[in-house]
């Protein structure tokens, strides 16, 4: 039986050791007096877009202030306790869901954003997706040839390479199943250096092997003189309808409640990099000019279905690199804009998340969760946003200003959910599963593909019948030409002259791949161009 519970992880070098002494670091929880800070550029958010932008702009000699609603935590704090990780590192404590409760959303909330908790899969944006953006949304100068130099640069910087070690047993399901069925599969490139292969990417990497923004671009920006104010929520952009003059920030205490102070950040250039949901929410709270009412619309999720397989041999889905193999057998099968396509991957299972996803109650749910060591979990990421019946969701504000995503689960999406469950169940049986259960509240564990195929035809596929999740929030502030985009391809907001958006909210559709490298590459390209303009 695999058991890493006696493995000791210690003496790990942490770039944030003594950060308060060597760098310009402000903990919002300690700010009780109103203050104003000035810089050349204010960046709101420290995830994939904010981190990359901060490094590039700081290196160009510009004075940068980063503001982050999450707290600063680093490898010293990552104790691999699932509950602590959700509470400290995830939006809404990992309980974020769409407005009608149908889709659970895992998204980071900490210095480094989702890059601190993602599962390290790093793909370049598919050509099909970029071509679609050019044809349907008028996104120019953003072909693979335009972006490849930036993808290459980020891959080199973050150590992105196909995973060289053997896949864990969970991911090996992809290889065995797809080989048997003659389906496509390949190795996932991961952003790691010296990875210990322990499997805790989702709880903050305790060894700093994961090349998240926390250990790469952000320390580089700090070293170059950037200021980071964390535990501080950007509430509003102060603007006159043509320019943003300041960002109004509320420092938060350890319980994430306002300390009572207000921090005002002033700069001639403002970059929104809060990611999908948070960036549109900031723009909505700020009542920015938006003549066509596009802010927050067309928010996409790579809506994800699940299937659980039980195997005679041990799977130990909690240990080992969480994602190392994937299948594109169904990603573009129906064309770019046909019936929804989906990418097959695996997900790591730790007890809390497993309990939530398995659903049910009582003795049967208990029986399911106690089979955890022999359970594998596949996922299918559906490419939303490419078809007219896939308009995505809309970011709205609760009365207190918090965002909530209204994402109707359409028949188009449910058709994809149904097909993706069939694919996953077939793949897991082909991989040797003794029993497989599609993610559906009325489905049992089936004991053969023949039995499953027949029984699954009788299931209803409706919102809330099929548990759905998402770890990829995209869109809500889309790139496009002036008739279709809120920002241009360089990330400049079309209706406020000094506001830029460098994050995943600029994607006009979802991607068809895990998004981090797309955000890194596009942000690197646009931040480089911005630095050149600002220095000129």
């Amino acid at each position, binding site marked *: 039986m695999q058991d890493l519970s006696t*493995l000791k992880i210690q003496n790990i070098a942490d770039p944030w050791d003594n950060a308060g002494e060597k760098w310009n670091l402000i903990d919002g929880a300690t700010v009780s007096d109103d203050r104003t800070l000035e810089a050349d550029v204010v960046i709101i958010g420290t995830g994939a877009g904010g981190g990359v932008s901060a490094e590039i702009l700081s290196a160009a000699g510009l004075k940068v202030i980063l503001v982050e609603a999450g707290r600063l935590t680093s490898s010293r704090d990552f104790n691999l306790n699932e*509950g602590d990780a959700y509470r400290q590192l995830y939006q809404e404590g990992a309980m974020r869901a769409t407005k009608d409760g149908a889709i659970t959303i895992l998204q980071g909330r900490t210095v480094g954003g989702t890059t601190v908790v993602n599962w390290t899969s790093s793909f370049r944006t598919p050509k099909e997706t970029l071509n679609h953006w050019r044809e349907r949304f008028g996104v120019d100068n953003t072909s693979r040839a335009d972006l490849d130099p930036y993808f290459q640069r980020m891959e080199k910087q973050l150590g992105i390479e196909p995973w060289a070690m053997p896949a864990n047993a969970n991911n090996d399901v992809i290889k065995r199943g797809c080989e048997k069925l003659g389906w496509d599969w390949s190795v996932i490139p991961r952003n790691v250096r010296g990875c210990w292969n322990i499997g805790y990417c989702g709880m903050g990497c305790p060894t700093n092997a994961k090349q998240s923004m926390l250990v790469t671009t952000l320390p580089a920006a700090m070293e170059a003189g950037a200021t980071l104010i964390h535990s501080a929520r950007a509430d509003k952009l102060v603007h006159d309808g043509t320019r943003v003059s300041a960002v109004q920030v509320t420092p938060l205490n350890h319980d994430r409640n306002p300390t009572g102070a207000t921090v005002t950040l002033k700069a001639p250039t403002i970059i929104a990099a809060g990611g999908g949901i948070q960036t549109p929410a900031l723009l909505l709270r700020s009542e920015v000019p938006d003549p066509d009412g596009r802010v927050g619309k067309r928010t996409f999720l790579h809506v994800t279905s699940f299937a659980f397989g039980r195997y005679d041999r041990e799977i130990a889905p909690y240990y080992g690199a969480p994602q190392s193999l994937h299948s594109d057998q169904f990603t573009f099968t129906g064309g770019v804009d046909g019936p929804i396509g989906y990418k097959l991957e695996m997900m790591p299972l730790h007890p809390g998340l497993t309990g939530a996803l398995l659903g049910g109650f*009582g003795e049967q749910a208990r029986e399911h969760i106690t089979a955890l060591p022999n359970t594998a979990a596949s996922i299918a990421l559906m490419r939303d946003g490419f078809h007219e019946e896939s308009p995505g969701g809309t970011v709205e504000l609760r009365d207190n200003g918090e965002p909530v995503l209204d994402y109707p689960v*359409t028949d188009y999406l449910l058709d994809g959910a149904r097909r993706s469950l069939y694919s996953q169940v077939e793949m897991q049986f082909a991989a040797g599963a003794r029993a497989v259960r599609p993610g559906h509240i009325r489905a049992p564990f089936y004991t053969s593909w023949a039995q499953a195929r027949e029984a699954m035809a009788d299931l209803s596929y*409706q919102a*809330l019948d099929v548990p759905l999740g998402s770890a990829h929030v995209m869109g809500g502030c889309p790139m496009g030409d002036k008739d279709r985009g809120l920002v241009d391809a360089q990330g400049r907001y079309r209706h406020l002259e000094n506001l830029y958006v460098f994050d995943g909210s600029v994607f006009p559709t979802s991607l068809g791949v895990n998004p981090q490298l797309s955000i890194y590459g596009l942000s690197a390209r646009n931040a480089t161009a911005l630095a050149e303009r600002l220095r000129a």
Partner: protein
Amino acid sequence: MDQDNMPGSGVDRRGFLKLSVWGGAALAVGAGASTLLTGCSSDPGPAGGYKHLRDKDVTLLRPLMAPLLGGGLEAVDGAGPDQALQAFDRLLQGGTDGQRGQLFQLLDLLQLGAARWWITGTWAHFEEQGDAQLRDTLAHWANNDGGFPKLAFKGLTQPIVMAWYVTPEAGRTTGYPGPPVVGSGTASA
């Protein structure tokens, strides 16, 4: 399709979302949403020893813990319903005011006999039901094909189950040996 309907759920989506989700449901069972469903954790304030759950929530949920977790409580030495509720309260600490407000509205709703009848198929308060009856109540609720009861079941039980199994003690009862040890100490509870 008509996006104003949740497919097949029989729930008119626009009407469903017009108020907050649970407030709309309260109107449907004839309660005065504005007065009954405060959805506010500070009114009347958290129960002793809790940061978020109120006395009435603890009373409402305590009887559900053992049948919901189906042996998961008993598997941990010395654990009982209150440990599960404490774990739930800790999970809620990671949430936001707006999100917790929605949960409290659902819990307020479940205090009403008419709502319990509609959602779980029983008028009786959970506190007045025996173990076998509670299992039947949960089974009836879990198998209710109404869109709203399904949403309520998921919205309440999913975080409770997650909260229990993220605790290291409960996590280890699933066969998970636990995480590596970081630093010189051991992981906290």
